[in-house]
């Protein structure tokens, strides 16, 4: 066998290995989804969705968990959306290149790398204790808002960066002020991108359990929260709780709850991908 034959053989071998590795990722994903569907799908019925939690697996439902998750979604959006977009607009449109903006940038990328459980410790001290909000929905939403703030800021900046400078020039040349230009031209033109980023950030928030456990969200909440100051649980915590129990019946409950959680996560991601594709098709400068 010549040297070149050997090289060609190695090349082919790596190709096969490459396909194999790619398949591992996909097969694991498939096994995983199928396993959960087999275990949990049969458990999902109207009663499961509308029942309160219970110490008896067969009677337990996820009503309070998904109600809590919805509450958290709405509150987190209300808090994080204006804050993150404002910060992104400031950094992209207003900030001069100086030490402060440089520091802000480094700081935000650092915050993006802080483990979520650390945000839990922050929320525990600041929101739960110092501000006296307790283990409430509001504490949870504030904590998660800080957690996803870096993601929203970064995606907002990218969306704004994609708006061509000529649009701003055109607006300024007609006598528009900075804010009029941002509000009338830059934000409408980048809205699709910003929205995509926010939905992706929310899908991250929906799956978080660790920081909420730290701030004291409960596993057992026998009522649907009716105000932001009520105690709560969310789907991931409910799943964690059921998974930690030895009885097989609770594992099935956990699988069923996972299906619901994945449904929400995939739905959010699907919307984000759809918006992104639509946006890319629509805008041709």
């Amino acid at each position, binding site marked *: 066998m010549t040297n070149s034959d050997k090289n060609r053989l190695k090349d082919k071998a790596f*190709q096969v290995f490459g396909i194999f590795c*790619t398949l591992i990722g996909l097969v694991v994903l498939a096994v995983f989804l199928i396993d959960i569907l087999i275990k949990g799908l049969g458990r999902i019925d109207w009663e499961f969705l509308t029942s309160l939690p219970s110490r008896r697996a067969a009677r337990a439902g996820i009503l309070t968990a998904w109600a809590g998750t919805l509450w958290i979604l709405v509150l987190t959006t209300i808090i994080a959306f204006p804050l*993150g977009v404002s910060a992104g607009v400031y950094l992209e449109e*207003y900030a001069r290149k100086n030490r402060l903006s440089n520091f802000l940038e480094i700081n935000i990328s650092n915050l993006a790398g802080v483990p979520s*459980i650390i945000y839990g410790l922050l929320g525990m001290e600041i929101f739960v204790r110092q501000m006296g909000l307790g283990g409430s929905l509001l504490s949870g939403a504030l904590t998660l808002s800080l957690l996803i703030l870096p993601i929203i800021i970064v995606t907002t900046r990218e969306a704004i960066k994609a708006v061509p400078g000529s649009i701003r020039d055109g607006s300024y040349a007609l006598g528009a002020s900075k804010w009029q230009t941002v509000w009338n031209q830059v934000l409408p033109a980048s809205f699709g991108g910003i929205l995509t980023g926010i939905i992706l950030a929310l899908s991250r928030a929906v799956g978080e359990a*660790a920081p909420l456990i730290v701030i004291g969200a409960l596993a057992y909440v026998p009522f649907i929260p009716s105000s932001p100051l009520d105690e709560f649980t969310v789907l991931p915590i409910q799943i964690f709780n059921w998974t930690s129990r030895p009885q097989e019946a609770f594992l099935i409950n956990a699988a069923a709850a996972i299906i619901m959680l994945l449904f929400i996560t995939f739905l959010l*991601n699907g919307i984000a991908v759809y918006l992104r594709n639509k946006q890319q098709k629509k805008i041709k400068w």
Partner: protein
Amino acid sequence: MKVSERIIEGLLWLSAVITILVTIGIIWVLLSQSIGFFQVVSLTEFLTEKEWTPLFADKKFGIMPLVAGTLLTTFIAIAVALPLGLTIAVYLNEYAPARMRQIVKPLLEILATIPTVVYGFFALTVVTPFLQQFIPGLAGFNALSAGMVMGIMIVPMISSLSEDAISAVPRSLREAAYGMGSTRLQTAFGVMVPAASSGIVVSVILAISRAVGETMIVAIAAGQQPRLTMNPLVPIETITTYIVQVSLGDVPHGSLEYKTIFAAGITLFVFTFALNNISFWIKKKYQEKYD
């Protein structure tokens, strides 16, 4: 009008500056709570003691077992994710047809969107029983399956960041290698991967940082027994799991036990902060090189 412009700019500035307050808040909370801890437990004991039993009658405050557990699961995760992720990146970049890449990439990205609590469930109820068929000594809670599943979760992070780095290598380099008769494999590992090495290193460091801070997978599947061991088959406890364990219990606020989670938290923060800044530094240097 001029005034309202000023007010708006002020509000926007404030939103940006809040991010600095968040960092200050994190550092302040971690420091102020753990200072109380370190007034009782010396830093030397914290760093050299080989047991961690703050919740028992015989209290020992050595962080080493938790650090060991964290490093063990992280090591296993990277051992799974790095070869898989890098191979996928090279394969998709150099070998795969464009159509396949378009389909496979978003599918792999799904792995990164699945909540970690779900991965924990998978590790505990599928991977561990599966591995137990081959490894009889494998405990129900262990670092091995938690680490492996974490590795799968991190694959898209390494593969997509590495792929970005590889495709950022100038075309001319690849063509030069092909021009001299290199095979795709020789081009990939002889030219492209070395040229993209800083980007790949950044992706691995970020992946390590992510694995170190990962909580729910290990809390569910790796156990809650702080143990100074490198044995992947027995239950261990990571820093993050310990924080969850204490948070779930009824430890009174202000007590020494309560403060331990902040001491553990600051240890975790130091690790991830260092990793993030190393990656930031490499990225900065690398960008300047190509500009």
